Protein backbone atom coordinates (compact mmCIF):
# COMPACT_ATOMS: atom_id res chain seq x y z
CA UNK A 1 0.00 0.00 0.00
CA UNK A 2 1.36 3.39 -1.01
CA UNK A 3 2.22 5.51 1.98
CA UNK A 4 1.06 9.09 1.69
CA UNK A 5 0.96 12.30 3.63
CA UNK A 6 -2.71 12.53 4.55
CA UNK A 7 -2.69 16.31 4.26
CA UNK A 8 -1.15 16.25 0.80
CA UNK A 9 -3.76 13.67 -0.18
CA UNK A 10 -6.53 15.87 1.23
CA UNK A 11 -5.23 18.83 -0.74
CA UNK A 12 -5.40 16.84 -3.95
CA UNK A 13 -8.88 15.62 -3.07
CA UNK A 14 -10.14 19.12 -2.30
CA UNK A 15 -8.70 20.34 -5.62
CA UNK A 16 -9.93 17.44 -7.71
CA UNK A 17 -12.82 19.28 -9.35
CA UNK A 18 -11.35 22.79 -9.30
CA UNK A 19 -8.68 24.90 -7.58
CA UNK A 20 -10.09 25.10 -4.09
CA UNK A 21 -7.34 25.18 -1.46
CA UNK A 22 -3.64 25.75 -0.97
CA UNK A 23 -1.55 24.15 1.76
CA UNK A 24 -0.44 26.58 4.43
CA UNK A 25 1.47 26.72 7.69
CA UNK A 26 3.23 23.55 8.80
CA UNK A 27 2.26 21.34 5.90
CA UNK A 28 3.48 23.99 3.48
CA UNK A 29 6.79 23.82 5.32
CA UNK A 30 6.81 20.08 4.60
CA UNK A 31 5.84 20.79 0.98
CA UNK A 32 8.88 23.03 0.62
CA UNK A 33 10.99 20.33 2.26
CA UNK A 34 12.10 22.58 5.07
CA UNK A 35 11.17 20.24 7.92
CA UNK A 36 9.13 17.20 8.89
CA UNK A 37 6.47 18.72 11.08
CA UNK A 38 2.82 19.59 11.69
CA UNK A 39 0.24 17.17 12.98
CA UNK A 40 -2.51 19.41 11.63
CA UNK A 41 -3.47 20.49 8.16
CA UNK A 42 -3.97 24.18 7.44
CA UNK A 43 -5.24 25.52 4.19
CA UNK A 44 -6.11 28.79 2.55
CA UNK A 45 -9.45 28.17 0.91
CA UNK A 46 -10.75 30.04 -2.08
CA UNK A 47 -13.41 32.42 -0.83
CA UNK A 48 -16.45 31.10 -2.66
CA UNK A 49 -19.55 29.06 -1.75
CA UNK A 50 -18.50 26.46 -4.29
CA UNK A 51 -15.09 25.99 -2.67
CA UNK A 52 -16.71 25.64 0.74
CA UNK A 53 -19.08 23.01 -0.60
CA UNK A 54 -16.27 20.99 -2.20
CA UNK A 55 -14.36 20.96 1.07
CA UNK A 56 -17.42 20.07 3.15
CA UNK A 57 -18.28 17.27 0.79
CA UNK A 58 -14.83 15.69 1.04
CA UNK A 59 -14.72 16.11 4.81
CA UNK A 60 -18.15 14.54 5.12
CA UNK A 61 -16.99 11.60 3.05
CA UNK A 62 -14.20 11.04 5.56
CA UNK A 63 -16.46 11.21 8.58
CA UNK A 64 -15.19 14.56 9.79
CA UNK A 65 -16.90 16.60 12.48
CA UNK A 66 -16.67 20.29 13.19
CA UNK A 67 -14.50 21.52 16.02
CA UNK A 68 -15.60 24.76 17.60
CA UNK A 69 -14.90 27.52 15.11
CA UNK A 70 -16.67 29.59 12.51
CA UNK A 71 -18.82 27.75 10.00
CA UNK A 72 -17.11 27.18 6.66
CA UNK A 73 -19.09 29.95 5.02
CA UNK A 74 -17.87 32.96 3.07
CA UNK A 75 -19.83 35.32 5.31
CA UNK A 76 -17.42 34.66 8.15
CA UNK A 77 -14.36 33.57 6.19
CA UNK A 78 -14.36 37.03 4.61
CA UNK A 79 -13.98 38.50 8.08
CA UNK A 80 -10.83 36.50 8.75
CA UNK A 81 -12.54 33.81 10.82
CA UNK A 82 -11.23 30.26 10.74
CA UNK A 83 -13.05 26.95 10.45
CA UNK A 84 -11.86 23.75 12.10
CA UNK A 85 -12.56 20.08 11.59
CA UNK A 86 -11.32 16.72 12.80
CA UNK A 87 -11.59 13.07 11.87
CA UNK A 88 -9.71 9.84 12.48
CA UNK A 89 -8.14 7.96 9.61
CA UNK A 90 -8.32 4.21 9.03
CA UNK A 91 -5.44 3.76 11.48
CA UNK A 92 -7.27 5.81 14.11
CA UNK A 93 -4.83 8.68 13.80
CA UNK A 94 -6.23 12.13 14.51
CA UNK A 95 -6.46 14.34 11.45
CA UNK A 96 -7.20 18.03 12.01
CA UNK A 97 -8.17 20.36 9.21
CA UNK A 98 -8.22 24.15 9.55
CA UNK A 99 -9.26 26.69 6.95
CA UNK A 100 -9.05 30.42 6.38
CA UNK A 101 -9.70 32.39 3.24
CA UNK A 102 -8.07 35.61 4.48
CA UNK A 103 -4.84 34.62 6.21
CA UNK A 104 -3.49 37.36 8.45
CA UNK A 105 -1.01 39.84 7.00
CA UNK A 106 -1.21 38.46 3.45
CA UNK A 107 -2.19 41.03 0.79
CA UNK A 108 -5.38 40.09 -1.11
CA UNK A 109 -3.48 40.39 -4.39
CA UNK A 110 -1.19 37.57 -3.29
CA UNK A 111 -4.17 35.28 -2.76
CA UNK A 112 -5.53 36.08 -6.20
CA UNK A 113 -2.14 35.29 -7.71
CA UNK A 114 -1.93 32.09 -5.65
CA UNK A 115 -5.03 30.52 -7.17
CA UNK A 116 -4.56 31.98 -10.64
CA UNK A 117 -1.02 30.64 -10.70
CA UNK A 118 -2.04 27.19 -9.53
CA UNK A 119 -3.65 26.33 -12.87
CA UNK A 120 -4.37 22.59 -12.92
CA UNK A 121 -2.01 21.53 -10.16
CA UNK A 122 -3.76 19.53 -7.47
CA UNK A 123 -1.03 19.84 -4.84
CA UNK A 124 -0.68 23.56 -4.23
CA UNK A 125 0.97 25.44 -1.39
CA UNK A 126 0.99 29.06 -0.38
CA UNK A 127 4.02 30.84 -1.83
CA UNK A 128 7.00 31.20 0.54
CA UNK A 129 6.67 34.92 1.10
CA UNK A 130 2.98 34.71 1.97
CA UNK A 131 3.77 31.75 4.19
CA UNK A 132 6.34 33.82 6.05
CA UNK A 133 3.80 36.58 6.61
CA UNK A 134 1.33 34.03 7.96
CA UNK A 135 3.97 32.72 10.34
CA UNK A 136 4.55 36.10 11.99
CA UNK A 137 2.36 34.88 14.82
CA UNK A 138 2.40 35.17 18.57
CA UNK A 139 4.33 31.87 18.75
CA UNK A 140 8.06 32.20 19.22
CA UNK A 141 8.77 28.90 17.48
CA UNK A 142 7.38 30.19 14.17
CA UNK A 143 10.23 32.68 13.85
CA UNK A 144 12.91 30.03 13.49
CA UNK A 145 10.91 28.48 10.67
CA UNK A 146 10.68 31.90 9.01
CA UNK A 147 14.45 32.02 8.86
CA UNK A 148 14.55 28.74 6.98
CA UNK A 149 11.71 29.70 4.63
CA UNK A 150 13.41 32.98 3.80
CA UNK A 151 16.28 31.08 2.20
CA UNK A 152 13.84 30.20 -0.60
CA UNK A 153 13.51 33.86 -1.55
CA UNK A 154 15.63 36.16 -3.65
CA UNK A 155 18.36 37.96 -1.68
CA UNK A 156 16.42 41.22 -1.90
CA UNK A 157 13.39 39.64 -0.27
CA UNK A 158 15.28 37.35 2.08
CA UNK A 159 16.97 40.29 3.77
CA UNK A 160 13.58 41.91 4.40
CA UNK A 161 12.02 38.84 5.96
CA UNK A 162 14.66 36.55 7.46
CA UNK A 163 14.92 36.12 11.21
CA UNK A 164 18.51 34.88 10.95
CA UNK A 165 21.03 37.57 11.97
CA UNK A 166 23.83 35.81 10.11
CA UNK A 167 21.86 36.07 6.88
CA UNK A 168 21.11 39.74 7.48
CA UNK A 169 24.80 40.42 8.02
CA UNK A 170 25.81 38.35 5.00
CA UNK A 171 23.30 39.95 2.63
CA UNK A 172 23.50 43.56 3.79
CA UNK A 173 26.57 44.59 1.76
CA UNK A 174 24.95 43.50 -1.50
CA UNK A 175 21.26 44.26 -1.03
CA UNK A 176 20.86 46.15 2.24
CA UNK A 177 21.41 49.74 1.12
CA UNK A 178 17.80 50.71 0.50
CA UNK A 179 16.19 48.71 3.29
CA UNK A 180 14.16 50.44 5.97
CA UNK A 181 14.21 47.42 8.21
CA UNK A 182 16.00 48.36 11.45
CA UNK A 183 18.03 45.16 11.60
CA UNK A 184 19.20 45.60 8.02
CA UNK A 185 20.02 49.26 8.59
CA UNK A 186 22.09 48.20 11.58
CA UNK A 187 23.96 45.64 9.49
CA UNK A 188 24.46 48.07 6.61
CA UNK A 189 25.78 50.78 8.93
CA UNK A 190 28.26 48.44 10.58
CA UNK A 191 26.61 48.68 13.98
CA UNK A 192 27.71 45.16 14.80
CA UNK A 193 26.13 41.76 15.21
CA UNK A 194 24.75 42.38 18.66
CA UNK A 195 22.73 45.34 17.42
CA UNK A 196 21.38 43.28 14.51
CA UNK A 197 20.35 40.49 16.90
CA UNK A 198 18.67 43.00 19.19
CA UNK A 199 16.74 44.66 16.37
CA UNK A 200 15.52 41.27 15.12
CA UNK A 201 14.42 40.27 18.59
CA UNK A 202 12.55 43.56 19.04
CA UNK A 203 10.86 43.10 15.69
CA UNK A 204 9.80 39.56 16.52
CA UNK A 205 8.44 40.64 19.88
CA UNK A 206 6.46 43.46 18.27
CA UNK A 207 4.98 41.04 15.76
CA UNK A 208 4.11 38.55 18.49
CA UNK A 209 2.37 41.25 20.52
CA UNK A 210 0.45 42.45 17.46
CA UNK A 211 -0.79 38.95 16.68
CA UNK A 212 -1.73 38.32 20.28
CA UNK A 213 -3.79 41.53 20.26
CA UNK A 214 -5.46 40.50 17.02
CA UNK A 215 -6.42 37.11 18.41
CA UNK A 216 -7.70 38.69 21.60
CA UNK A 217 -10.16 40.72 19.53
CA UNK A 218 -11.46 37.61 17.79
CA UNK A 219 -11.66 35.74 21.06
CA UNK A 220 -13.78 38.49 22.59
CA UNK A 221 -16.00 38.70 19.53
CA UNK A 222 -16.56 34.93 19.56
CA UNK A 223 -17.38 34.55 23.23
CA UNK A 224 -21.18 34.30 22.96
CA UNK A 225 -20.97 32.15 19.87
CA UNK A 226 -18.60 29.67 21.52
CA UNK A 227 -20.90 29.40 24.48
CA UNK A 228 -23.82 28.69 22.17
CA UNK A 229 -21.82 25.99 20.40
CA UNK A 230 -20.89 24.38 23.69
CA UNK A 231 -24.42 24.57 25.10
CA UNK A 232 -25.87 22.96 22.01
CA UNK A 233 -23.07 20.41 21.66
CA UNK A 234 -23.10 21.40 18.04
CA UNK A 235 -19.77 19.79 17.25
CA UNK A 236 -21.16 16.41 18.27
CA UNK A 237 -23.51 16.48 15.31
CA UNK A 238 -22.85 14.96 11.90
CA UNK A 239 -21.09 17.41 9.65
CA UNK A 240 -23.99 18.74 7.61
CA UNK A 241 -26.27 19.08 10.62
CA UNK A 242 -23.50 20.80 12.53
CA UNK A 243 -22.87 23.14 9.63
CA UNK A 244 -26.48 24.24 9.51
CA UNK A 245 -26.68 24.71 13.27
CA UNK A 246 -23.35 26.54 13.40
CA UNK A 247 -24.54 28.91 10.70
CA UNK A 248 -27.69 29.59 12.69
CA UNK A 249 -25.67 30.22 15.83
CA UNK A 250 -23.23 32.42 13.95
CA UNK A 251 -26.05 34.46 12.41
CA UNK A 252 -27.24 35.16 15.93
CA UNK A 253 -23.99 35.77 17.74
CA UNK A 254 -20.83 35.79 15.60
CA UNK A 255 -20.05 39.11 13.92
CA UNK A 256 -18.97 38.61 10.33
CA UNK A 257 -16.16 41.11 10.76
CA UNK A 258 -14.05 42.20 13.70
CA UNK A 259 -13.51 45.96 13.77
CA UNK A 260 -9.71 46.13 13.52
CA UNK A 261 -9.51 43.55 10.76
CA UNK A 262 -12.21 45.36 8.78
CA UNK A 263 -10.18 48.54 8.89
CA UNK A 264 -7.02 46.70 7.84
CA UNK A 265 -8.82 45.11 4.90
CA UNK A 266 -10.10 48.51 3.80
CA UNK A 267 -6.58 49.93 3.87
CA UNK A 268 -5.27 47.10 1.73
Amino acid sequence: MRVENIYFALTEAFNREAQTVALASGQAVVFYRIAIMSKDGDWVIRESPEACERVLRELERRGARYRIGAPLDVRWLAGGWSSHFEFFDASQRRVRCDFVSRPPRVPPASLVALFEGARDRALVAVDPESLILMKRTQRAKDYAVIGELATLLSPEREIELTTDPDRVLALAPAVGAASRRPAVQAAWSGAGRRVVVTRLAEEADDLQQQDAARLAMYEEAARSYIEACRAGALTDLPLRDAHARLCEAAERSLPTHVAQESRRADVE
Partner: protein
Amino acid sequence: MQMLSEDDRNLKEMTTAELARAWDLWFDLAQATNDSDRPYTHGVFAAISAAGVEAGRVRSRSPDIAESKPSR
Protein backbone atom coordinates in the same frame (compact mmCIF):
# COMPACT_ATOMS: atom_id res chain seq x y z
CA MET B 1 22.57 29.97 13.40
CA GLN B 2 20.69 27.14 11.73
CA MET B 3 17.44 25.71 12.92
CA LEU B 4 18.13 22.41 11.22
CA SER B 5 21.06 20.04 11.04
CA GLU B 6 22.53 18.83 7.76
CA ASP B 7 20.61 15.56 8.16
CA ASP B 8 17.38 17.52 8.48
CA ARG B 9 18.23 19.47 5.34
CA ASN B 10 18.48 16.22 3.39
CA LEU B 11 14.72 16.43 2.83
CA LYS B 12 15.33 18.13 -0.48
CA GLU B 13 17.22 15.10 -1.72
CA MET B 14 14.43 12.67 -0.85
CA THR B 15 12.11 11.29 -3.46
CA THR B 16 8.43 12.15 -3.10
CA ALA B 17 7.76 8.65 -1.81
CA GLU B 18 10.60 8.86 0.74
CA LEU B 19 9.33 12.19 2.02
CA ALA B 20 5.82 10.79 2.35
CA ARG B 21 7.09 7.77 4.30
CA ALA B 22 9.21 9.93 6.57
CA TRP B 23 6.34 12.28 7.34
CA ASP B 24 3.89 9.43 7.80
CA LEU B 25 6.19 7.77 10.33
CA TRP B 26 6.59 11.07 12.16
CA PHE B 27 2.81 11.54 12.14
CA ASP B 28 2.36 8.07 13.54
CA LEU B 29 4.72 8.75 16.42
CA ALA B 30 3.31 12.20 17.05
CA GLN B 31 -0.10 10.71 17.89
CA ALA B 32 1.32 9.97 21.33
CA THR B 33 0.88 13.61 22.38
CA ASN B 34 -2.70 14.07 21.17
CA ASP B 35 -4.20 14.32 24.60
CA SER B 36 -1.84 17.10 25.61
CA ASP B 37 -1.97 19.10 22.38
CA ARG B 38 -3.44 22.56 22.41
CA PRO B 39 -6.93 22.68 20.88
CA TYR B 40 -5.83 25.01 18.08
CA THR B 41 -2.43 25.74 16.56
CA HIS B 42 -3.66 28.14 13.89
CA GLY B 43 -6.64 30.33 13.16
CA VAL B 44 -8.37 32.94 15.26
CA PHE B 45 -9.43 30.52 17.99
CA ALA B 46 -5.80 29.77 18.87
CA ALA B 47 -5.99 31.89 22.01
CA ILE B 48 -8.82 29.81 23.43
CA SER B 49 -7.75 27.37 26.08
CA ALA B 50 -8.48 23.68 26.20
CA ALA B 51 -11.08 24.31 28.89
CA GLY B 52 -12.84 26.72 26.62
CA VAL B 53 -13.53 24.11 23.98
CA GLU B 54 -13.79 20.99 26.11
CA ALA B 55 -17.48 20.54 25.43
CA GLY B 56 -16.77 20.65 21.73
CA ARG B 57 -14.32 17.74 21.75
CA VAL B 58 -14.86 15.67 18.65
CA ARG B 59 -15.74 12.01 19.01
CA SER B 60 -15.77 11.13 15.33
CA ARG B 61 -14.13 7.98 14.13
CA SER B 62 -13.23 6.55 10.77
CA PRO B 63 -16.38 5.31 9.04
CA ASP B 64 -14.70 1.91 8.58
CA ILE B 65 -13.91 1.44 12.26
CA ALA B 66 -16.46 0.59 14.94
CA GLU B 67 -16.85 2.96 17.86
CA SER B 68 -13.83 2.33 20.05
CA LYS B 69 -11.16 4.33 21.82
CA PRO B 70 -7.96 4.71 19.79
CA SER B 71 -5.18 2.44 20.99
CA ARG B 72 -2.77 5.38 21.33
